[in-house]
Each structure stands twice: as structure tokens, then as C-alpha cells.
């Protein structure tokens, strides 16, 4: 994604200078929002001009999503005012927000999986009693061509890859002719190509006068896309970088500056995060690997679900101590591959071996007992039980085990003790271990999921998008953990759409394309280009 960092930040659209100081499209003044146990937003003020991209940065749980939910009408602020086009407004419902021209793409996708794309888009926007499919189809076609993307209006939303769902979400946010577009971590699910596409789309949109608020954890994105960057920390604005500085500094200077603002004294800890470093090679250490593969897939095929690719004839071997990256555009069989290894999906052909013994007939839990773990990317769906406490979620996979369960009863003291330890270790921002996990910020839920899975003594771990939605510091921590795991002789598979991540972590990278392995590349000089070619080249083929 250095591609993006190199692209010069497009100059902000010139505003009518005749009007003197331009009127902000939206202005948030002294917004405060308190949840039980946390001040999510603490007197935050910020504004966006028409034709401007404001990037919001901040660690997990800093209050970004909350602030944007207030702006879009989902939450009511406890204090503060909102001005749209210079006049005070009360946004007391999402409908009001939409009517005021505020469109939002939420961090967790909100399409209804059982409805078609068309139905999802007509939801809440259809005028009249009878569904007007014809008009809606035209509108989809229009918006899709403006955005330079293609969408299948009749596909069930749940059958689309996450990247495609994201496109639909953006179309949805723009549906009513928005003035302000809020994107909450839109890139965390996208591939480099997807991100580049999205960036083009944003440039399109802002030249047409839209005000855009863009939330991300990727500094280079913020620098490349933003006209202004605002940094939140613990519910407060701790810094803003204006257009002048953004344009006159080098990306490296800017990244340092942002990190210093975000983490203050702790900035040193993150100094070696992948995207801050010039050469990614430096981080790979030679680990001792087992002679024979620990995890082996031999000619494995499995059906895809909901129109997504399955896997066909996949053969892979991962040695103990090795990190194998799986690259590819989302929806090319990643999910099937992970689930087949984990035992959640039955392969139609082929064999899977753990330390040379076939496990293909074993259930999920017997595979887990053999030391095989799968860290899902579907964190809200199968990752955690939302209404359960953080502590309970952290020991979820040890139901019935000592010391958490004794003679059939739950030992809360033991659970909370372990939970507090993991919470401290992984820096999970939560009011307490008894808080319902669904109330945590997106990144903190992901931290909890990782904490749980890494607290076992595994032999093989499959990670699916392990750092998705995490802030830079946490990413550094998680990657370090993954390396540690491998250092202890664990065979590790990292499935990710983030090429930087794979280059940073892997010993070898296999590229998945339409459910097949398009090639396996040894990591090293030139690997990134080769992998990129396989992803893209295979696409062209």
C-alpha cells in the first residue's frame, strides 16, 4: 500500500472565497457522551468543510465511532450542539440525520444478509407504498458508475464478499444525496486494490462538494486521503494537523508526529510498527522450523457457501515455527480454507493432517484438543457472545474446565481473576470484566478475541485478519505475539487481505484465487511485487 502513500494528497477543492470564511458542512460543538463507566466523548469539537476530507485517528476505544453515531443520530449526546450548514439542528434519530444529508457507513457492516442488495438499498428510502424497483435499479446503476464499481442488485447481501458489501454500504450512504459522508474504518476489510478504488471514489465525491469524515487506523491512509487529520484520545481531541502542514511535510514526518500525539510518551513502543519503517525485511528473524510439516493439507476441496468461492484442490504444508501467509482478494475462498482446517466445514475431497495424523474426520472440539485453533474474522458473529460479560467471553472455550467451572458451577472469582490478567495483558479497554462485551469498541472486541485464543497452548493456529480494526500500537503487539507463537514452534497460518501484514509476518505467502492456490512465494526481496502480481495477474486471467 505504499502505492497510496506515494500518491500526492489531492488538494482540497477550492471553496467559494467570495463568502469569506466558508461555512462548515457540519460542526460538532462540545459534544459529551457518557456510558456507564466510560466517558466516550469528552467535550469534543470539530468541523468539516464541504469538499474536504477530515480523517479521524485514535486508539481503540478513543470514542470515534461514538462521536460519529451521535452525528448520524443513532446516539443522543449528553451535552453539546450540532450545526449543519451553519444552523443549529437536533439530530434525534437516524432518519433525521439522513434527511439532513448525513450518510454513514458503520464500522460493523449493517446490511441485512437475508435481503437482496436492491432491497437493502430501498430500505428506508422507498417513497410510496409499493416498492419502486425500477427507479432503485437506475439509482444503483448511476451511483455504481459514479463510484466506478459494479454491483449485482439481485444478489443476497449475505452472499457478497465483505469488500462488495462495503461498496453497497457506500452506495447506501450516498443514496439520499448526502452532504456529509461518514466512513467508519471502511478500509479495514479491503484489499490494496479495494482501498485504491475507494480512494478514487472519495476524490470523486469530494470534488463534487461532499464533506467526508474518514475514520482509519492506518496512518498512511490518513495522510494520503485527509485534508485535515484530527486525533482523539480517551474521548478528547488531542491534536489536529491542518492542510498546510499535511502538504508541506513528508509522510515519515507526519507519521512520527501523529504517533507522538496519539501515544505521547509511549510512542517509542510503536516506533517499529510496520508502516513506520522503511524496509520491512528487517523485522523477520530466522526461526528454527521443524523438519516435517505440522499442518498439512493434501488436495483439499470444499464447497463455498452463499455463492462465495470454496476451495478446490488446495495443498499446503506448514512446518512448526513457520508463519504461512495467505493472500488474496477477500471472498476467494479464505473463509472456506479456514473453516475446513478448523473443522467447521466438511471437505468434499482431500486430507488434512496434524503432525502426520489425519484429522479430517475429527470434530471442531477434538481438533482443538489436539492444539489446533482458529481465530475467526467474524468477531461479532462467531467470535464472541455479545450479551455475555467480557470475562465470560475470555474463558468461553473452556466451559466446564477447571478452575472456572467446579462441580458444574461457575466460579466467577476465578474467571474474573483470569479475565483481569488478560485484560491487562492485551490492554482491553473495558470498564470492568463484568461489562457486556458488545459494549466495547470494535478494536477492543478484537483484542478480547485474540486474548482468548492466544491464552491456550496451541500447536497450530489459523488467524483470519488478526489485526483488522486495531490501532497501530495494538497491531504491533499482536504481530509480536504471533511471532512469539511461531518462535515456540507453532505452525501459524495468517489469512489477511493486508499485504503489508503478510510481508511483515510471513516466511512464505500463498495466494488464493478463486479457491485455488495461484502460487506460493518465499518472502524476501521482491516478494511483495510477485504476490501482488499473483493477486492481480490472476485476476486479469
Amino acid at each position: 500500500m505504499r502505492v497510496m502513500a506515494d500518491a500526492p494528497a489531492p488538494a482540497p477543492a477550492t471553496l467559494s472565497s467570495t463568502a469569506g470564511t466558508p461555512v462548515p458542512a457540519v460542526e460538532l460543538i462540545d459534544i459529551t457522551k457518557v456510558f456507564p463507566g466510560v466517558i466516550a466523548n469528552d467535550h469534543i469539537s470539530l468541523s468539516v468543510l464541504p469538499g474536504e476530507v477530515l480523517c479521524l485517528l485514535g486508539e481503540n476505544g478513543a470514542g470515534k465511532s461514538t462521536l460519529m453515531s451521535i452525528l448520524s443520530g443513532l446516539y443522543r449526546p449528553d451535552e453539546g450542539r450540532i450545526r449543519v450548514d451553519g444552523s443549529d439542528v437536533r439530530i434525534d434519530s437516524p432518519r433525521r440525520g439522513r434527511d439532513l444529508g448525513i450518510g454513514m457507513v458503520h464500522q460493523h457492516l449493517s446490511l441485512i444478509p437475508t435481503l437482496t442488495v436492491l432491497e437493502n438499498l430501498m430500505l428506508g428510502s422507498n417513497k410510496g407504498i409499493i416498492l419502486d424497483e425500477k427507479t432503485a435499479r437506475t439509482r444503483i446503476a448511476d451511483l455504481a458508475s459514479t463510484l466506478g464499481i459494479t454491483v449485482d442488485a439481485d444478489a443476497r447481501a449475505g452472499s457478497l464478499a465483505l469488500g462488495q458489501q462495503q461498496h453497497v454500504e457506500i452506495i447506501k450512504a450516498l443514496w439520499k444525496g448526502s452532504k456529509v459522508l461518514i466512513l467508519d474504518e471502511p478500509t479495514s476489510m479491503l484489499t490494496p486494490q479495494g482501498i485504491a478504488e475507494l480512494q478514487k471514489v472519495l476524490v470523486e465525491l469530494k470534488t463534487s462538494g461532499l464533506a467526508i469524515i474518514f475514520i482509519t487506523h492506518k496512518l498512511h491512509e490518513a495522510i494520503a486521503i485527509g485534508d485535515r487529520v484530527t486525533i482523539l484520545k480517551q474521548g478528547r481531541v488531542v491534536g489536529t494537523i491542518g492542510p498546510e502542514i499535511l502538504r508541506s511535510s513528508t509522510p515519515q514526518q507526519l507519521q512520527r508526529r501523529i504517533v507522538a500525539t496519539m501515544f505521547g510518551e509511549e510512542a517509542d513502543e510503536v516506533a517499529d510498527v510496520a508502516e513506520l519503517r522503511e524496509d520491512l525485511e528487517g523485522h523477520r528473524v530466522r526461526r528454527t522450523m521443524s523438519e516435517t510439516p505440522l499442518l498439512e493439507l493434501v488436495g483439499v476441496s470444499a464447497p463455498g457457501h452463499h455463492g462465495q468461492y470454496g476451495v478446490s484442490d488446495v495443498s499446503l504444508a506448514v512446518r512448526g515455527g513457520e508463519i504461512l501467509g495467505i493472500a488474496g482478494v477477500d471472498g476467494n475462498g479464505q473463509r472456506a480454507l479456514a473453516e475446513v482446517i478448523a473443522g467447521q466445514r466438511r471437505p468434499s475431497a482431500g486430507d488434512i493432517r496434524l503432525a502426520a495424523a489425519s484429522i479430517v474426520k475429527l470434530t471442531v472440539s477434538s481438533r482443538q484438543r489436539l492444539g489446533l485453533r482458529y481465530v475467526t474474522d467474524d468477531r461479532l458473529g462467531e467470535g464472541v457472545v455479545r450479551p455475555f460479560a467480557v470475562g465470560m467471553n475470555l474463558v468461553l472455550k473452556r466451559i466446564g474446565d477447571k478452575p472456572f467451572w467446579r462441580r458444574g458451577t461457575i466460579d466467577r472469582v476465578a474467571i474474573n481473576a483470569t479475565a483481569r490478567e488478560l485484560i491487562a495483558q492485551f490492554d482491553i479497554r473495558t470498564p470492568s470484566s463484568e461489562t457486556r462485551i458488545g459494549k466495547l469498541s470494535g478494536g477492543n472486541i478484537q483484542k478480547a478475541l485474540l486474548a482468548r485464543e492466544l491464552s491456550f497452548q496451541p500447536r497450530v493456529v489459523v488467524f483470519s485478519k488478526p489485526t483488522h480494526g486495531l490501532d497501530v500500537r495494538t497491531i504491533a503487539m499482536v504481530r509480536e505475539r504471533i511471532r512469539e507463537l511461531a518462535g515456540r514452534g507453532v505452525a501459524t497460518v495468517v489469512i489477511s487481505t493486508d499485504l503489508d501484514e503478510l510481508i511483515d509476518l510471513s516466511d512464505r505467502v500463498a495466494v488464493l484465487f478463486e479457491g485455488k492456490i495461484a502460487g506460493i512465494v518465499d518472502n524476501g526481496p521482491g516478494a511483495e511485487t510477485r504476490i501482488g502480481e499473483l493477486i492481480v495477474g490472476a485476476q486479469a486471467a
Partner: protein
Amino acid sequence: MSDLLTPTFLTALIAGGILAGIPLLFASLGETIAEQSGILNVGLEGMMLTGAFCGFLGALATGNAWVGLTVGAISGLLVSLVMVVFCVRLGLDQIVVGISIILCAEGLTSLLHGAFFGQSYPRLDAIDVFAIPVLSQIPVLGGSLFSQPAPVYMALIVVGLVGWIFRRTTAGLDLRAAGERPDSLDAAGVSVVRVRTVAEMACGAFAGIGGAYMSIVGAGTFVPFLTGGMGFIAIVIAMMGRGHPWGAVLGALLFGMSLSIATALQLVGISIPVDVVQMLPFVSVMVVLVVFAREARLPAALGLPYVRGSR
């Protein structure tokens, strides 16, 4: 056993199936609407019973079956407001409130019936049968399928209408979204509370009609506990129908026939112990559950109260 295929038997079976099936059809249609919007309306039985009692009163007072059915619908709707207030607006547990509704309805209707009529059971006149010209002349089927009281044909029209509303209208789309992802519907700017309120009221009205049909057309009188578990069977039918109104028709007919099989058997002179026969519908519920339950795709947010911003 060759007696079983005689026209008498078949006619009795089908006609009886329809007679017993129509209340189930109305009720399960209502339940389908509620479930699609995310409400598990356990109180269906109570709404049916209330509809049966009030509808009977209405028909008895005016001598007009249509007035009776209308009164039944209104009374069912009024009962559904309890669900609306406690579950949709206040977010209380739907099952608890539903069960209370059943218990209250059973108590109240029995009490009022006793107060009004004591031990007498006044009867209503039989409702006119509307024979569709030509079709009703077809042997076997004609006499059973096409010579029915007018509400039967109406029921089918309503089923078609509801199916159309589900698929083709804004209201139908909102309804399906409310049951699947109420948060997304809310974010799209549609009030989940409003959608669910309307759905629940429609459900109550349909259950009321179903109940009133049982007392006015089916039994011709009211006795306490008249509905005898029909509401629960209707809930099963709605779940089996997987949100398709025509699924409710199929299920209602099936269960209706298993209810009427006793009468049909007696007509042809085969007698089976009455207890065994009365078990039939419930046995078929279990069989159907075992066979179809795996496939039942219920709305994701079924039974869950929606509170904005809770996650």
C-alpha cells in the same frame, strides 16, 4: 379400508379440514406477520379465545355473522395492544407477557361466559354457504372445496394480499428488516417500534377473526376454552411456513384435516377411540417439527426486544 376412498369420506375430510383449518389459517397468518417483524407472539391462543368469545357475543346480539367476525377482529386487536405496550414499547420478555395474555384470556372469557349465560349455551344460526357456480358441481371436490362460507374465500384473498405486501411493498420490506436486523432498519430511518406495533396489531386482529370463526362458523356457540390449543398449533404452522403466507395455508389445511379425520372416519363407520383421534393433530405437530424444524428459518431478531444503541 377401501371405504376410506369413498366420496363421502373424502368430502367429509376435506370439508372438515377446511372448517377446522380456517381459524388456524387466520391465526398463523397473523403469527407470520408478527414473527416476520421479530415478535414471537406466544399469546396467540389468548387472542383467539378472546376473539371467539367477543365475536360470539357480537354475532349473538346482532344475528349477523359478519358483525361477529368484525367484533372478534377488534377484540383480538385490543388484546394485542398489551403486547405492543409491554413488549414493543417497554421491551419486556415476549414469552412471559404472551403466557400472561393466555392465562388472563382463559380466565376472563370463562368468567364472563358464566356471568352472561350461566350453564346455557345459546346457539347461532348456521352461516350461509356460498357455492361457486360450475366448480361446486365437480364430484367429490366440488361439494367440499367450492361450497364454503364466504369468509373462506376471503381468507385466501387475504393470504394472497399479505404475500404481496411482504414482497412488493415498503411496509413488507420494513417488516422483514425489523425481524432480521432491527438496528439496520433503525439506522435506515424507519421506526422499529412503529413497524412492530402495526405487525402485532395485525396479528391480534387476525387471531381474533380466527377465534371468532371457530365460535361463529365452526361451533355455532361458545364454550369456555373453546380454542383448546389451536393458538399453539398456529404458532407451529407459522414457523413451518418460514414467512410464506401460502405455507400457512398448507399447514392449516394439513392440521385441519388431521382434526377432522375423526368425524370423517365416523361417517364411514370406522371407529377409533376418541382419545387417539384427538391426539392426532398434536402427533402431527411433532412429526412436522421433526421433519421440518431443521429447515425452519426464523428471523434473526425473533423474540428480541429492540432498544436503540444497546449493543
